[in-house]
């Protein structure tokens, strides 16, 4: 009886949808799925699990009476190396701004937000300006495009190394230029706690503007000519065309660029490793850099994993927002 129902159901199902299940596409997807599982899904769960573990592999395996210097953990004799299950203690410590971990976490998050807020809009604006500048048919415009795009082709580590020279106090190009315009402040950008973050911001803008320019350039070149012709016939000036036609038509490009720019800003670490490794009290630490520090330098395994969870949540949130916005856009006019 039950089999019969199931059979009928199956027949209706198969008849309604597709009669045959094609195994080939799934087979072809299998290698990709395998690697996605191995390198994305599995590590994500491992990180979630290990964010609840206290483990300092650089400490001796000695049993001492301790609360592990974590909130909510009772003092008792236990190994100061670990591993110990500590639940969500690291997350509690992160959001308790009176604790050392909380104070550091807040500084890192503030730094990261400043970094994102300072790099993303300015590099996008520059990218747009570059794109409008090179989007014309003049002899030698290819050279200008290459010049703007060039920083993008450099690996971030080389770019950071070049900027180390630019930032040199005294005779560095950057400081000389600033002095020409009347700047007389401190010049040790890399090592000055209040300037380190801005040094990273400057390099990131210089590096990314050319990359985003490519998207704007592609967007500009896809714009329909007839709209501009019509506007010209109506007597619209450059200003009106820019703000009433170009920018609205580039809305999707802007959205796309802003999302990849924000995600990229969260993911950069190379230039921080090259430039600000000498800043030791976290004045310029970005989230990913802090994760690296905790995991490989300070050997604080649990905290590094907990910070990674925060990172994953942020990136997942951004991806979701991007997805929702572009979906809504798709349905709209």
């Amino acid at each position, binding site marked *: 009886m039950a089999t019969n129902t199931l059979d009928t159901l199956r027949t209706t199902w198969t008849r309604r949808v597709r009669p045959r299940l094609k195994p080939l596409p799934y087979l072809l997807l299998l290698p990709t799925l395998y690697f996605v599982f191995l390198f994305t899904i599995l590590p994500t769960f491992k990180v979630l699990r290990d964010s609840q573990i206290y483990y300092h592999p*650089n*400490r001796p395996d000695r049993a001492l009476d301790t609360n592990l210097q974590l909130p909510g953990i009772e003092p008792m004799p236990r190994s100061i190396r670990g591993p110990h299950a500590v639940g969500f203690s690291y997350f509690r410590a992160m959001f308790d701004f009176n604790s050392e971990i909380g104070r550091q976490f807040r500084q890192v998050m503030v730094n990261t937000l400043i970094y994102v807020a300072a790099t993303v809009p300015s590099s996008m604006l520059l990218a747009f300006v570059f794109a409008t500048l090179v989007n014309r048919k003049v002899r030698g415009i290819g050279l200008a495009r290459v010049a703007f795009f060039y920083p993008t082709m450099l690996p971030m580590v080389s770019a950071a190394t070049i900027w180390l020279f630019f930032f040199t106090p005294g005779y560095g190009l950057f400081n000389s230029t600033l002095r020409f315009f009347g700047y007389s402040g401190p010049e040790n950008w890399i090592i000055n706690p209040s300037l380190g973050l801005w040094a990273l911001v400057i390099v990131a803008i210089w590096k990314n503007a050319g990359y985003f320019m490519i998207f704007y350039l592609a967007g500009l070149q896809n714009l329909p000519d007839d709209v501009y012709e019509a506007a010209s016939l109506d007597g619209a000036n450059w200003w009106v065309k820019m703000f009433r036609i170009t920018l609205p038509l580039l809305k999707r490009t802007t959205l796309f660029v802003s999302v990849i720019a924000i995600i990229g800003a969260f993911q950069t670490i190379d230039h921080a490793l090259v430039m600000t490794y000498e*800043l030791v009290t976290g004045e310029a630490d970005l989230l990913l850099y802090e994760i690296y520090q905790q995991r490989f330098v300070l050997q604080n395994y649990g905290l590094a994993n907990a910070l990674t969870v925060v990172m994953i949540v942020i990136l997942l949130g951004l991806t979701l927002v991007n997805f929702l916005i572009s979906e809504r856009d798709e349905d709209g006019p």
Partner: protein
Amino acid sequence: MKKRRSFVIALVASLMALSFGPSLVAGQEQTTIEIYFPIAVDSPITEILEEYAAAYEAENPGVDIVWSYEGGYPDVKTKLLTTMEGGGDLPELAIMLATDIYDLRNAEAIQPWDSYLSEEVLADFFPAWLANSYYDYDQDGEAELYGIPFQRSTVLLFYNRDLLSEAGLEPPTNWDELATTAQQLTTDERWGILIPNSWPYWVFQPFAIGTGQNIVSESDTEVFFNTEGVISALQFWLDLFQVYKATPEGVQSNWGDAPGLFASGDAAMIVHSTGSLPSVVQNAGFDFGVSGLPGRDGGFYTVTGGGNLYLVAGVDEATAQQAADFVAWLTSPEMAVDWSIRTGYITTRMSGLETEAWQAYIEKVPQAAEAAATIEQAGREFSVQSLAEVRDIFHGYVLRVLGGEISPEEAMAAAQQEADAILSIYGG
């Protein structure tokens, strides 16, 4: 057709002979000793090391020495620890910072040398180089030997003798003389003294030791930041630019530039590593001298630095013995002197100073003898449990003092408190 097949067989056979040949000849006796090596100075290190490997292999056909260049010191440590964690193929030896001993042993990445090296060999190392080599991990009252000194350096004061004699000055012998000499040698185009201090603890230690108060003791859980000596050494750094105007203001991020500025005459004195000696010897067009750092009330002081040879955990006894034999050869007086002459590191063996090669070398480069003499003035380099965390605290406060944000007294009181909080987990 048949001819072609036999040709293919011959080709395959000769290819196999080529690829498996050496191992077949040597049979099962061949032992590979792989060494993770950090490149930390500006010399043709890889050429020298390959030459050493070839020389040792010629004497010991059963041993295959493989140098594995892994970047800088932090890269070697990170690679060793992550390879171990992931269950990958580990090397037999690694050269890592002498100060990393606690981290490495605690992580079970290294094992003791004690049973593999003879007392004779050990007794010939300068004792200062061994100050960060012993660790009583199991707390049985007897410390084991983990680090064999290899590429070791000290902090030196380089001074331009020509400029000094032009001004009618003698090389400084205490803080007052150091400051006034620097002041007198400062002109519009030249600094009296440069003390690169963006990664400050190492160049700072000789100043602290010069007051009779090192920032560490023999203990692995104690630091001495909030002490009169350390505070006055910090104040002296401040005075050099605030009072004497003899050095750039604030934090000096010029580790890489300082030797060049000294050699070009843009700085009359610099505080730098012995590792810079060869490049200064080559580039300086004037007579110069080196010494330890003058102490507050006289005397000369410095601190040790550089990397030791560690025996990786899990290496079996037979291989470990062969590795130890290689290490004994590599650190033998003749080799240590050759290494020293070609890289600027200071020789690790006392009897090395008596070799002909060394005597001939110091005839040509008297500064090398002056540099080697500083070993006797060297204090123990900053190393405690949770070193990275404690060092970050110290560095942070020193930089804030140099930046004028906080007074030396306040900074060291706070640094002491934060460091003690971290070290308290060790029950100290």
